[in-house]
């Protein structure tokens, strides 16, 4: 009987683990698809050969412009170049009426966090891939997962949920920032990264 009671107790634990590790993330995060698909690989690869900073501009004031505006797209796609369905949507629904595309941003930080791309890229000599991985050569955009409570992207917490990866800089929370800064021997005050 003792054995059986352990099984029941253990299955309770297993039940929670399944709920917590499998179903909880499904409930906590809402999956949303991007308004249209975008193929980074075509743009950055040999076909077009654009670099990251051509579209994701850092201007002379050191401001990172993030996702380019539709005007940037229109520089090439003022009319349809190819035959893809997504390009047709881009031209017809956004470029011609001059509407901004409501992209969901994977790495959008809360308003009180300050992150300077230019400092990390120009002074810290970090490559885009070190933080953003293979996003620049991806063929399509991942499903965007938004936290139902905090309203932020899953990428901020950590895409893999356990936060136990070997890969560094997987998440983009304060602890991740501090960890990386400490590895590089930097000690910063609070206001260095808070606004």
């Amino acid at each position: 009987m003792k054995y059986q009671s352990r099984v029941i107790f253990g299955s309770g634990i297993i039940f929670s683990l399944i709920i917590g590790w499998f179903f909880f993330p499904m409930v906590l995060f809402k999956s949303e698809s991007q308004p249209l698909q975008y193929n980074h690989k075509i743009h950055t690869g040999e076909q077009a050969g654009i670099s990251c900073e051509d579209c994701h501009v850092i201007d002379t004031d050191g401001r990172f412009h993030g996702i380019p505006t539709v005007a940037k797209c229109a520089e090439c796609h003022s009319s349809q170049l190819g035959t893809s369905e997504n390009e047709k949507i881009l031209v017809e629904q956004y470029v011609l009426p001059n509407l901004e595309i409501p992209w969901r941003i994977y790495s959008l930080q809360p308003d009180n966090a300050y992150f300077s791309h230019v400092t990390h890229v120009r002074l810290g000599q970090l490559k885009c891939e070190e933080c953003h991985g293979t996003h620049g050569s991806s063929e399509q955009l991942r499903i965007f997962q938004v936290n139902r409570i905090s309203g932020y992207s899953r990428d901020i917490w950590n895409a893999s949920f356990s936060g136990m990866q070997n890969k560094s800089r997987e998440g983009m929370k304060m602890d991740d920032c501090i960890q990386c800064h400490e590895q590089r021997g930097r000690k910063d005050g609070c206001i260095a990264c808070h606004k």
Partner: protein
Amino acid sequence: MNSSNEKKSRYGMIIDLDRCNGCGACTVACAIENNVPPAQNKTNIKTGITWMQVYHVSNNESFPKSDTVFVPMFCQQCEEETPCVTVCPQNAVEVDPATGIVGQIPQRCLGCRYCMAACPYHARYFNWWDPQWSEGMKKQLNPDVAPRMRGVVEKCNFCQGRLHAAKAKAAAQGKKEIDPVEYIPACVESCPMQAITFGDLADETSTVSQSAKNKDTFRFLSRLGTEPKVHFHSEKSWVRDMAEKTLTRSKKEIVHG
């Protein structure tokens, strides 16, 4: 940022009280720059938020010998034994090692208001309500400064949003040091009489460290030994004498918290 290869700054100000004519431009520019919400109907002088508050101080002589000086009062950025840092149970305040700015992280604040009681200058303000702007004004908020929520304390931080912007601009040119002209707080920029000088006190050659040595330059309540980094200047001796007086509250409403 104080890794050994970087310069340590100590930002400070000199305010020429003889020039200040109490127009209020600094107060307004400060509130706009730092996304401080406008008053609500119920807000009064005790519950309002004015990071930069300009006080009238009278020489207490009778008309027509009366004289009034306008004293802009805001966080004096105490360097030593900083009272608010000492008392904060949340570590929500610290003296930034790289700049000397007393930084407040509102998200960390639990709203006990101990710091407000500790501040000798009454320079800290509490958010009694959720901030409110009209619909269109919400789109006119400064993108470099996060608005604060109800129940936290806030105060002047020498426009750290502008410091971030200046650092980013320097970084864009591959420089670690900012160009001093790029980092000017909103009150300094807006003062029509140019009564406020801002700069690095750690830099011996800067205008502020030169003027800080002037015999007519003083600091409020310097006897407390908190080494504030905001200096004042006046050629009127009654104004300078006021600096060490404990404020007698003839105006009974000016008591915060």
